[in-house]
């Protein structure tokens, strides 16, 4: 960082400096909800070019900013008042932290003199958010506001991205001052991993007979998809993906075995268990991916590439750790590999465990519906998921063309993510077809955002899979709690079609398989926001499944 030498001599309020700094950072859209302590900022917004999207709950502001960031590759910004406004942001901030999304959360705070006195709508959001932010600030002086905004944006975007919080006391926002000179924040140059370690990795890779790529969401964050695809083309190396890396490599390739882990493909999990070398790229050995860790890839040596050195060796000891730029490391490792028997074995696994869509009966089979909808929507469509069974069906059956085309709450698993994230993604990419796949449990967590879709005519297409229960919990109770069903029944759900229509959203419902083709056409051909309610079998489960605490080699069931 170097001082730009720029001296702002004009006198403005802290709120005006905040807004001006956001504009200077290239921010064009912010998501928020006004209230007492943040009112000076809302006053400054009146004279600003920033587009403010008024959501109906602060949690949705943070999640919409997250969706905006993922779909655009730019920083997402959310705004809330002190106290409950700030605490309502926390789920969205944690979501961005666990999925490494660049997010700026701005909270109003009570006036400086009242801080620490248990004033009305005072909470220590700085302290409460410490474990789930990359960094945070309390702005103590008006002259610092602009510089803090610039520094916060730089921190949120740089290296491994994440959420940054700015807590702005009301008096600092209201009082007027010149701004102290801002520092210029340059993006750090890509770091080439250690040369000696790279050379060892090249040799290890050349000797391997059964190497496997384990691809994580870090590939998308590092914008290393092109480098990864080039590496795959040059090596012909089979691969598996985490939930957040789906779309990183060609889904149709017989060497891409799909998602690994708890609801991963059997082909992927079998390949992991039998490989002799795991090349981990931007992944972090999450427990949902590895199953029982000490039985994960038992015969494999491990090369781990990650931009974050603290991820290397965190959960699995590695043979070679390569901290640095993923694209540079992949280019350095690429080489022709003589592994034809292993490639053939993986292609056989790919074919053997291919998903089937010929379930009997007239009831709607969600995996087939999702596959057909994704094909009809095309390669330019984005899909945003909520959390539960439908999220896993999307992961298994949606044709995902690129990492950025799939928005999912991977680390936090936050029900309620889908609609606000889709809203944010649609505003980031107004020409794209954005589809939200939700469940009857999840959608009720942020149902109020249908009002936001209506207000701004945001043309998100919602596919609501309704099994009248909390399906994933019900599935676990069936399988692991001796069918002792506890608080999973949602059979008294509202009439979702009528509910959407009450918000002014076009809506319709289907319950038979023969209605699916017309429903897909209507969903995709409707100009504005639309909701398609789909009645599915409450007994449907997600297969395959690695039981909790078990090895990935102990999968239950098979794709139906």
């Amino acid at each position, binding site marked *: 960082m170097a001082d730009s030498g720029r001296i702002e001599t004009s006198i403005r309020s802290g709120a005006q400096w905040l807004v001006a700094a956001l504009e200077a950072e290239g921010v064009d859209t912010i998501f928020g909800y006004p209230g007492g302590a943040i009112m000076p900022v809302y006053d400054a917004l009146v004279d600003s070019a920033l587009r403010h999207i008024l959501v109906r709950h602060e949690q949705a502001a943070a999640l919409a900013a997250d969706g905006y960031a993922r779909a655009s590759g730019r920083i997402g910004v959310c705004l809330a008042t002190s106290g409950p406004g700030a605490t309502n942001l926390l789920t969205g901030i944690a979501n961005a932290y666990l999925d490494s999304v660049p997010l700026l959360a701005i909270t109003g705070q009570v006036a400086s003199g009242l801080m620490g006195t248990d004033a009305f709508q005072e909470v220590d959001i*700085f302290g409460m958010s410490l474990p789930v932010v990359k960094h*945070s600030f309390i702005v103590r002086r008006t002259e610092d506001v602009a510089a803090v905004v610039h520094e916060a944006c730089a921190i949120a975007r740089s290296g491994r991205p994440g959420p940054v919080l700015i807590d702005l006391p009301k008096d600092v926002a209201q009082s007027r001052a010149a701004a102290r000179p801002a520092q210029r924040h340059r993006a750090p140059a890509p770091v080439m991993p250690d040369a000696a370690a790279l050379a060892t990795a090249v040799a290890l890779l050349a000797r391997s007979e059964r190497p496997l790529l384990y691809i994580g969401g870090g590939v998308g964050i590092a914008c290393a998809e092109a480098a990864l695809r080039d590496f795959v083309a040059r090596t012909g190396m089979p691969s598996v993906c985490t939930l957040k890396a789906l779309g990183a490599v060609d889904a149709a390739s017989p060497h891409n075995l799909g998602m690994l882990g708890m609801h991963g493909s059997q082909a992927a999990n079998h390949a992991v268990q039998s490989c002799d070398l795991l090349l981990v790229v931007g992944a972090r050995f999450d427990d949902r991916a590895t199953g029982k860790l000490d039985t994960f890839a038992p015969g494999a040596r491990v090369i781990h590439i990650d931009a974050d050195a603290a991820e290397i060796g965190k959960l699995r000891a590695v043979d070679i750790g390569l901290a640095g730029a993923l694209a540079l490391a992949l280019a350095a490792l690429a080489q022709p590999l003589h592994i034809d028997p292993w490639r053939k074995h993986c292609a056989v696994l790919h074919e053997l465990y291919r998903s089937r869509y010929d379930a009997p009966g007239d009831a709607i089979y969600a995996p087939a519906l999702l596959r057909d909808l994704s094909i009809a929507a095309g390669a330019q469509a984005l899909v945003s998921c909520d959390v539960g069974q439908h999220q896993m069906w999307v992961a298994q059956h949606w044709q995902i063309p690129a990492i950025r085309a799939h928005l999912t709450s991977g680390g936090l698993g936050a029900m309620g993510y889908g609609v606000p994230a889709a809203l944010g993604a649609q505003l980031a990419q107004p020409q794209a077809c954005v589809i939200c796949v939700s469940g009857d449990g999840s959608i009720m967590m942020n149902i109020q955002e249908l009002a936001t879709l209506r207000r701004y005519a945001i043309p998100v297409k919602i596919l609501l899979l309704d099994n009248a229960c909390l399906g994933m919990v019900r599935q676990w109770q069936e399988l692991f709690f001796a069918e002792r069903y506890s608080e999973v029944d949602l059979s008294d759900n509202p009439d979702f079609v009528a509910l959407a229509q009450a918000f002014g959203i076009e809506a319709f419902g289907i319950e038979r398989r023969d209605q699916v083709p017309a429903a897909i056409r209507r969903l995709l051909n409707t100009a504005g926001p639309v909701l398609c309610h789909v009645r599915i079998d409450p007994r449907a489960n997600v297969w395959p499944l690695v039981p909790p605490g078990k090895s990935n080699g102990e999968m239950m069931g098979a794709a139906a």
Partner: protein
Amino acid sequence: MIHRLEVTLQDGEGALLRVLGTTERRGFRVLAMHAEVGADALCRVELTLEGTRDAELLGRQLARLHEVRTAAIRASS
């Protein structure tokens, strides 16, 4: 195991809280601590920790905090 850790960080609001919070959340118990801000506005922290997890990994997790300049294990026993 007992570990002695030295951390140098830019002094600032919440910096020490971040170091202590990260240390405890990552599985270490703080047995003793000394912290002092120097004339260079850097805060030097000496921590004596107890824990069964990898202290070198904790050092890397502390090093990625924005204020932290250095984090090093000085001794383990």
